[in-house]
């Protein structure tokens, strides 16, 4: 087990599973003793997790470890069975998308969460349409903003028509649209659940560079990935999950890629 230097207190994972590193300053977001059950199945078991300021957290673990469950919980669409959530140190209920939106959280979901039968522009502005005071949409303005944000974050190959139905895009293009949407509306926290699974090498590099830039601008991120090299490129801290609990946590400077790999594989 790693020994942490100050100011971080030792993790003591053996004694208190899921405790891990204790935040040194008030985190942007923190969950304590979170459990999530689907019927008799426990997807998250006494999980502690926090996102600091100007921080990129790498969330790692094998398939079925509970990473997406955790991400969906932070983004509000999968409320916990028990446990507490703190936003900026204040106890907060985040039980639906409106709650997390108020907390400034944006998510790139693993299952994309786009409507195939709608256009790229409409997907980007879904639920946040630019409307006049009677609720009618301003299509011209939405298209212009859509074109602008399609050019940021990832350089999406081959999209030249914002009116195109999302159902006709390739997997990588869909992922890029989901990224563009989250990136445009992000405020405090950006959650990225395996965002690069369908991206090209160039698009991936671009996205990772973007996540680093965001940190500098004050937006923290959680990056879920199976690629430890990507994680080591951008993350400040690593959390490894297995079977709904945290099995390892360390700051980048306190660990090595070999050690993290070892924990992902072994558990």
């Amino acid at each position, binding site marked *: 087990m790693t020994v942490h230097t100050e100011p971080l207190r030792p993790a003591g994972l053996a004694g208190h599973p899921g405790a891990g590193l204790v935040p040194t300053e008030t985190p942007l977001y923190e969950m304590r003793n979170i459990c999530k059950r689907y019927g008799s199945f426990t997807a998250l078991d006494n999980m502690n997790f926090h996102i600091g300021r100007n921080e990129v957290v790498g969330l790692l673990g094998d398939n079925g470890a509970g990473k997406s469950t955790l991400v969906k919980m932070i983004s509000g669409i999968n409320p916990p069975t028990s446990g507490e959530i703190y936003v900026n140190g204040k106890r907060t209920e985040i039980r639906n998308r409106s709650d997390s*939106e108020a907390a400034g959280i944006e998510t790139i979901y693993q299952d994309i969460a786009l409507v195939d039968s709608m256009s790229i522009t409409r997907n980007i502005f879904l*639920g946040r349409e630019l409307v006049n005071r009677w*609720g009618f949409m301003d299509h011209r303005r939405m298209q212009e903003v859509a074109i602008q944000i399609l050019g940021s974050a990832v350089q999406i190959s081959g999209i030249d028509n914002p009116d195109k139905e999302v159902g006709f895009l390739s997997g990588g293009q869909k992922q890029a649209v989901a990224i563009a949407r989250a990136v445009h509306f992000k405020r405090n926290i950006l959650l990225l659940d395996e965002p690069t699974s369908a991206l090209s090498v160039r698009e991936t590099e671009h996205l990772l560079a973007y996540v680093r830039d965001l940190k500098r601008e004050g937006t923290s991120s959680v990056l879920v990935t199976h690629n430890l090299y990507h994680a080591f490129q951008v993350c400040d801290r690593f959390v490894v999950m297995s079977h709904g609990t945290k099995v390892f946590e360390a700051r980048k400077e306190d660990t090595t890629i070999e050690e993290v790999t070892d924990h992902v594989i072994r558990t």
Partner: protein
Amino acid sequence: MTAAHSDPIHSQSDHIRRAVSDRAKRPLTVKVMDWVRDRPEGGIAVMFVLVQLCCIIGALLFPESFRYLLPANLSVLLKSIAVPGIMALGVGVLMVAGEYDLSVGAVYSLLSIVCANLANAMLGDIGMDPHSALAPFAAMAVALTLGVAIGLLHAFVTLRFNIPSFITTLGGMLLWKGTTLLVHGASALRFKPTEPFATLFGGGLGIIHASMIWFLAFALLFYFLLHHHRLGNHFYAVGGNRNAAVAIGINPNRTKAIAFAIAGFMAALSGVIAATRVGSIQPGGGLGMELQTIAACVIGGFALNGGRGSILGIVLGTALVFTIQDVLLLLRAPAFYFDMFVGALIVIAVVMNTAIRRGRA
């Protein structure tokens, strides 16, 4: 985005902008061709134009035997489109939101009878002395409100217990049909409302009956609602991918409940307008209209599992179905041919749409 990455951004956005403006400069013929290929109602628009052309040419070649272009026939044709069209607007909006309403035919009958009985009870019949000008309006308001209430009831049962609306509204269809027989029986009911109600809903301009004007007015209203209003956008979202809609913060139950209410409202409205036009109500008159209107929507390019469809598709689908009915009547073909044609048309329309979509995917 930071300065370090600003160059490629602009080139990417400029690339899209250039492509968009190039597409805007396509010649009109190319635009029309692309529209036909890209839109779900494109195929049916072509078919509609072809059928109309055939009818017009036929009528010009054989003016004696095929009286399609006579004003009397056009007037009948427009009337026959209007009432199912009004109902189909509500059915279509609900289908976009990913749900069905099989009860609209039964609701149409029940609420037109409720409206007529209320109006007559409040001295709203033109033959009564004294009679009330307001009574039919009040009765109609009650009927429309009940339509909304019935739609919300279907929504509640469907969404609260998470069951298919196909089942809820199939139950609703039988329930409301039974209710009609319970409260009224099987006899025909007179509905001759006082002025100005009679003119407003039963009058007309030349060969264009008031019901057609109402259909077009509501089609225009629904066009703005479905294609340009935030609420319409949410109908497409919950119908197209419910989970994505939830993930993005749309309340699917609220959105679908509104769509159910609209379907109930339009069923009631079509019932009252039909009753005013005919002057009497047959309690079984709405029978089969639920399938006719769903058929019209499907022919107009609607997806059975939601998220796809347009107001133009509803208008064209309804117009095509009842043009065919009109032609068959003109040719004195037995009534069963109508069912056979509509049946074939549904299958052809879906095959065509699927083939076009597969070709593009």
